[in-house]
């Protein structure tokens, strides 16, 4: 598969007000010192995270702590091979997170498929489907390597360089195209990325294209989830 070069610049121009710049730097500093991670534990890399979090290496001293839902989290850790079925969940999880959000690919499998490079059931290169901020290669990387990678991410955030979440909005057509190649043309997530991009003024020429046109052909409006037990549904139908 020939990969498209998607390196459009996403850095934000510095604001002219010096006080606003100080505020932005403070915010970037806070972001770098407080990272809530959501580990989507696929594959074998997940086993390296408990030692990194607990008393041996203690991530909390760097301000990194685990969170349980995507709404609360900042970092999405993908810790191993991503099967096609898993990738759907990963994408839905990623789209629910609040920006700025960061994706960390751990293990070789997320870089190039690793030992599953021949498999028909895995998505090989994670960055084709999601904007990955940092890869931590290894099979599997030890906790020291995980922490080293997260510190790298911290320094990127502090310098305001970790902006790849904007790339997902600005290049949505590319990512959606790759997703449609795997999941078929009727792939739709519960989050309307184009509307969000428009709302937060993150839209670019590459947000919409031929792939999003396919999506818009069959896109269904979202309905509220009806929380009912099965027998209640039956009763409702009878009435």
């Amino acid at each position, binding site marked *: 598969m020939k990969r498209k070069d998607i390196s459009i610049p996403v850095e934000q121009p510095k604001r002219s007000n010096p006080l606003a710049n100080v505020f932005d730097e403070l915010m970037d500093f*806070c972001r770098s*010192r407080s990272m809530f991670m959501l580990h989507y534990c696929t594959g074998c890399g997940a086993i390296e995270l408990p030692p990194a979090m607990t*008393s041996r290496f203690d991530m*909390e001293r760097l301000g990194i702590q685990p969170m*349980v*839902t995507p709404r609360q989290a900042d970092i999405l850790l993908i810790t191993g091979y991503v099967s096609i079925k898993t990738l759907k969940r990963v994408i839905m999880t990623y789209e629910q997170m609040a*920006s*700025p959000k960061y994706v960390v690919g751990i293990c070789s499998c997320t870089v190039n498929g690793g030992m599953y490079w021949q498999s028909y059931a895995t998505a090989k290169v994670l960055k084709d489907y999601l904007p990955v901020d940092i890869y931590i290669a290894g099979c599997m990387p030890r906790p020291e390597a995980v922490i080293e990678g997260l510190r790298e991410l911290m320094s990127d955030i502090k310098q305001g360089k970790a902006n790849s979440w904007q790339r997902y909005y600005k290049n949505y057509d590319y990512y959606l195209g790759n997703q449609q190649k795997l999941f078929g043309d009727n792939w739709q997530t519960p989050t309307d990325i184009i509307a969000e991009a428009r709302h*937060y003024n993150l839209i670019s020429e590459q947000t919409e294209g031929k792939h999003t046109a396919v999506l818009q052909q069959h896109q269904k409006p979202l309905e509220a989830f009806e929380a009912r037990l099965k027998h209640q549904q039956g009763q409702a139908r009878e009435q």
Partner: protein
Amino acid sequence: MSLQHLLTELVLMPIIAFVVGLFLVLMMRKLGARIQRRVGPPLLQPLYDILKLYGKQTQISHGLIHEIGIVMAVGGYIAAETFLPVPGMNGIADKGGLVTLAYIMMVPSLGLAMGVGQCANPNGSIGISRALTAMFAYDIPFILVIFGVAYQYGTTSLTDVIAIQQQQGMAGWGVVQMPLLFIAGLIALPAMMGKHPFEIYVAPAEIATGPMVEMGGKFLGGLFIMQCFQYYTISVLFVTLFLGGGENWLTFLIKVFAVAAIPLSIAYVFPRYRTEDVLRMMWKWPVILGLLGLALVMG
């Protein structure tokens, strides 16, 4: 008291409560880390978390009630702070009293219930129903304790309770006068703070943090601020009722942190009860102790 003086106090008291609350949260996390033989977070970690959450660039709101609910949750505690006398500042404490405070301390839970209700997340609904059940469980011993203290000192005014205790010295403290009520309050304390072994409504591994499940960005930030206020309010109330309030800021803060350290250090060595067990336990042991204490006080 001049109006200007009163307004200054009303602004200062919640701010002080927030700052002390930040350090209480830090103490909780540091204690947990030490018990688990870790280093723990740096000094300003709670502040970084809150600033970062408010600095999120996309905020996911589920509607107006979701936002009002968070405002109610934080606002309820801010109102409670103005009724809690601290050294040198009484705010409007002499206008209210124990009963007003007990009433206001329920507002945050109700606000949270409203806010979480609109998120329509099943985990959130289970969480909030558990939170209200827990409130139901700890409120019985809590009201018994409040009633006993009010009977002992013959007043529901917190300023008077503090003044009487400080006049009589350490022998007049609630903990010496009413030891059984003190123990009953101590058992209810972790439930009021929502910590283990009564942490039924957060339960990250079971219902994905319950009420917080759909909260991101500024909503979660609001809940973090609420947590700071919650720890502060409950510890200060306990200090006021049983430990003679504060003669000056130094002794006051020492007492507040010592009281908060009891449930927080218990929290990290115990697992969690189930909801019905919390209700059974809360309505049995602290209530029996509270009733006995009440009999001693009234006898």
